[in-house]
């Protein structure tokens, strides 16, 4: 990384650390948490979808499995949530590995792969709705016991920092992908799989590795969610809206870029907060929500239409990001 890049990164990280001390309201800290958490989940999607071109429509399945593993270990088996945390990552990784092996062995690519992931997430939702261990549609309630040793915090600022740590971790991993052989191989597979194979790349193996990594990182988010909201049910854990959000923050910010998901998530949430109040400013509008969603949707369409490379595309740095050693 260049000297300039290093300084900018340092400033950015410090700003994110300082944010809760500048904006002290619970509202601001919660918005901050949501932005970082969505950026983190989006980045885990981006590692597979953006860097390796493995577009998934069901990435929520990793999050959901991680959340349930954590919640069940904690509530049913009394495992401390800190200890359950690595298991939710492990569970996400296993699901990623399994999806990868099955669909890549069958040669599924592009939209077929996307549909498989969508279907797997649906299967997750249906299973969670019907097997006793997840308590079906009732969901799992985690008993409130706000002690740090219990991975529950009185002060929401700590969850903000947990999300920040996760976000920085996955950004670091994404940055490493721009600098390592593994990352170069994933980019080659994304751009042209035949040519990649001709140059000695075992594309099956690299893709499975990538999806396992992405799934594991995403699964870890499940524990954080469960511990913050103390509740999980099938539609939260496996709902398609979370998959869409992960993909959206990456596409808006710039798929296959290190900063993309964070920028996309920031823009998306700030836009969401702003348009929510928009309707209330107009006279004679009794229900603001549909209007907000329309404006929100229009802005999204505009971004996708005019910025196919996402907001990062504005900087035109894609080809320069990985340059000289």
């Amino acid at each position, binding site marked *: 990384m260049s000297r300039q890049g290093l300084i900018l990164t340092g400033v950015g990280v410090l700003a994110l650390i300082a944010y809760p001390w500048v904006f002290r309201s619970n509202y601001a800290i919660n918005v901050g948490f949501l932005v970082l958490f969505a950026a983190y989940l989006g980045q885990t999607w981006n590692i597979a979808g953006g860097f390796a071109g493995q577009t998934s429509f069901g990435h929520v399945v990793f999050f959901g499995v991680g959340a349930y593993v954590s919640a069940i270990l904690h509530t049913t088996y009394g495992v401390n949530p800190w200890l359950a945390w690595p298991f939710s990552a492990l569970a996400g990784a296993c699901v990623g590995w399994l999806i990868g092996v099955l669909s890549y062995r069958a040669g599924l690519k592009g939209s077929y792969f996307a549909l498989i992931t969508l279907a797997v997430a649906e299967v997750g939702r249906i299973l969670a709705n019907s097997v006793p261990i997840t308590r079906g549609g009732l969901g799992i309630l985690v008993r409130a016991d706000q002690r740090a040793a219990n991975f529950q915090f009185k002060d929401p600022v700590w969850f903000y920092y947990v999300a920040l740590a996760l976000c920085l971790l996955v950004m670091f991993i994404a940055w490493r992908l721009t600098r390592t*052989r593994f990352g170069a191989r994933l980019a080659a597979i994304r751009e042209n799989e035949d040519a990649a194979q*001709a*140059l000695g790349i075992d*594309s099956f193996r690299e893709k499975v590795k990538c999806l396992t990594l992405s799934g594991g990182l995403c699964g870890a988010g499940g524990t954080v969610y469960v511990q913050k909201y103390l509740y999980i049910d099938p539609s939260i854990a496996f709902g398609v809206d979370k998959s869409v959000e992960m993909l959206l923050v990456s596409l808006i910010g710039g798929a296959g870029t290190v900063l993309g998901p964070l920028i996309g998530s920031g823009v998306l949430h700030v836009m969401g907060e702003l348009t929510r109040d928009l309707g209330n400013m107009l006279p004679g509008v009794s229900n603001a929500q549909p209007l907000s969603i329309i404006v929100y949707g229009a802005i999204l369409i505009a971004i996708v239409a005019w910025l196919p490379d996402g907001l990062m595309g504005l900087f035109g740095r894609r080809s320069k990001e990985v340059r000289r050693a």
Partner: protein
Amino acid sequence: MLEVSGLSKAFGGLAAVDQVSLDVGSNEIVALIGPNGAGKTTLFSAIAGFIRPDKGSVRFLGRDVTGLPPHRICACGIARTFQITQPFARLSVLENVMVGAYHTTRVRREAAARAEDVARQVGLSRQLDMRADALTLAGRKRLELARALATRPKLLLLDEVMAGLNPIEVEEIVSMVRAIGKAGVAILLIEHVMQAVVSLAERVYVLNNGRVIADGPPAAIATDPHVIEAYLGHGAAARLKRGGAHA
């Protein structure tokens, strides 16, 4: 070094490659020519592991490599280029070549250094930071060559690296290929540009309708009646003999 024997591949009822046998010695440059649809590219794909042959075998350095997947073939030391260039479009030229260079090292610095070396060898030094999809056709052909070369192959399979280039560009690629051969890499090339075939190849195989119809040094091939008929149609050889210019 490379021994192909009795290789066959049919698509439906069509025998694209039919009982082909050929060999390439170490340090040798061998050309594979033939009319369009003769099965040249199919033969390449079968050697490089992109399609599995129905019958026959491919041996490389004494080892049976028939039907191995492409990345394993590459690991054995065979690198191919694509007739229709397949660049990693949104990566830079340097990144493209580095993917090849990463085949023998996992260290980024080494891969970048090798990639720059190879790029210089094929005359792409000034386009290193350019996106691959911004290259001209000649540039893309060079990129194909550079990427394959960066894997440090013992045998290069070049699929029409000169098609569509102007005479000056052809001349440049010819001297590059010659230099690569001099450096100890065996080369099997598919080519339509006869000027290049004659000046590069020590031996030529002629493929028609999936079969080898002639092989030998380029000068002998050019006067072989089977070859002339394959290109110009039935009876052409006889007419050429009789009428010369009127044929």
